[in-house]
């Protein structure tokens, strides 16, 4: 059964497990998931559950609905997608996890529009970036030799070698430590070299499907992945 975990500033405030075909999200009490905050529209968004997929639809809300930091109007949800509405984060799971206390906070909220503004500004920057690049983009963060790198080919190699498209730094890094490959469903990152040298959002990976706003760390070099959805 699908599950939506509602978080407020990293605290789980509700775990919503449902068999319904439609789950509404909004500020007023007639919604299935009530986000009691003025930054949230009365009928902000809804999730429609089909045979094999779930789709989130933004009801032209004032402050927007974000999936993995991109503003969306309608988006197919993937397992573990992070939906941001106001200062709430809703994590979608295809299948509910068994354990956990569904109520961990008392639900008292403080209106906070700064995060909202930051998200909107960031989304606007990313849109501009993607429009300029015409492809998905890597943003150089720590230890990168570029500010941005357009992923305009099927394979991008990352490592120390002169063969690597993206030069990464770090001790004991392999010549070609990792590759980003375009497959049917999207971009995957695969660790090719020494174990444990490729991390996504802090976790070591062998193979991983990249999502928008993921932080890629290869050795000491850090990049942010911005997915082209245009």
């Amino acid at each position, binding site marked *: 059964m699908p599950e939506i975990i509602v978080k407020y500033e990293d605290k789980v405030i509700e775990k919503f497990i449902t068999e319904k075909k439609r789950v509404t999200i909004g500020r007023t009490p007639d919604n299935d998931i009530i986000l009691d905050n003025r930054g949230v529209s009365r009928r902000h968004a809804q999730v429609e559950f089909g045979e094999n997929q779930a789709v989130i639809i933004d009801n032209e809300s004032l402050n927007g609905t974000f999936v993995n930091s991109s503003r969306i109007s309608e988006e197919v949800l993937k397992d573990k997608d992070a939906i941001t509405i106001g200062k709430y984060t809703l994590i979608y799971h295809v299948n509910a996890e068994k354990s956990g206390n569904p109520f961990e906070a008392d639900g008292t909220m403080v209106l906070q529009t700064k995060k909202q503004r930051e998200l909107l500004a960031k989304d606007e920057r990313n849109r501009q970036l993607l429009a300029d690049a015409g492809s998905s983009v890597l943003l150089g963060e720590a230890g990168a030799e570029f500010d941005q790198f357009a992923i305009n080919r099927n394979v991008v190699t990352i*490592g120390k070698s002169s063969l690597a498209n993206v030069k990464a730094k770090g001790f004991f890094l*392999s*010549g*070609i*430590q990792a*590759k980003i490959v375009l497959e049917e469903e999207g971009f995957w990152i695969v660790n090719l070299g020494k174990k444990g040298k490729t991390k996504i959002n802090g976790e070591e990976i062998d193979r991983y499907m990249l999502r928008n706003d993921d932080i890629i760390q290869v050795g000491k070099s850090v990049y942010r992945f911005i997915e082209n959805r245009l």
Partner: protein
Amino acid sequence: MKYGFFSDVHANLEALKACIIDFRSEKLDKLYFLGDAVGYGPNPDECVKLIDEIAEVNLMGNHDYAALGLMETEYFNQYAAESMGWTKSSISEKTMEIMSDFELTHVIDRILLVHSSPREPENWHYILDMEDAEENFDFFKEKICLLGHTHRPYIVYKSESEEAILSKETEVTIEEEYRYLVNIGSVGQPRDGDPRSCYLIYDSDTGAIKLKRVQYDVKSTQMVMAKIGLPEYLIDRLAVGR
């Protein structure tokens, strides 16, 4: 110092083992591998492990690069693509890890090592005639450039003022006025009509370079290839060295 340079093993373990025995009997001080450890042949994991153990430096070949999933095999011929499909599905993670450290070029003792061509090492060009050879002299500054890739050994030398010359010998002594472009042949799939493995010995004390041939048990390799079901054409060509 006596150096051994070998290339294009192409997962032919029998050929590699025979060469290693010869390396020992030649008392070589240092060994260098010039790329294409895998592809075509039946023992990629074993060959990569052995090469990594014996060689000071390993270069990246186009088949190694393809096996890592870093390039499309659409410009590979049908048989190469078929065997690459098998190679990719059979190699271990450890093999991938070793190959991901293979270098594109390397320089030792006034010698440039590269798999395909000094002009654009990463584009895997073939040097197929004297015109290609002549042109490539402009793309290295070292005394000698050693390469593999075409599986056909040759020694070409050139002075500043004259056109490049193809040596008729398989053994020459380095001379002051010339620079050298040498294809060191292939261990695992020779294509010059001689089915024996080929590698190069360079003695830096005497300045002698020598293309060395080594007999190996072709039939053993062919049997393992047949067992796996690798393309017949690739099995047959080993016996004739074409």
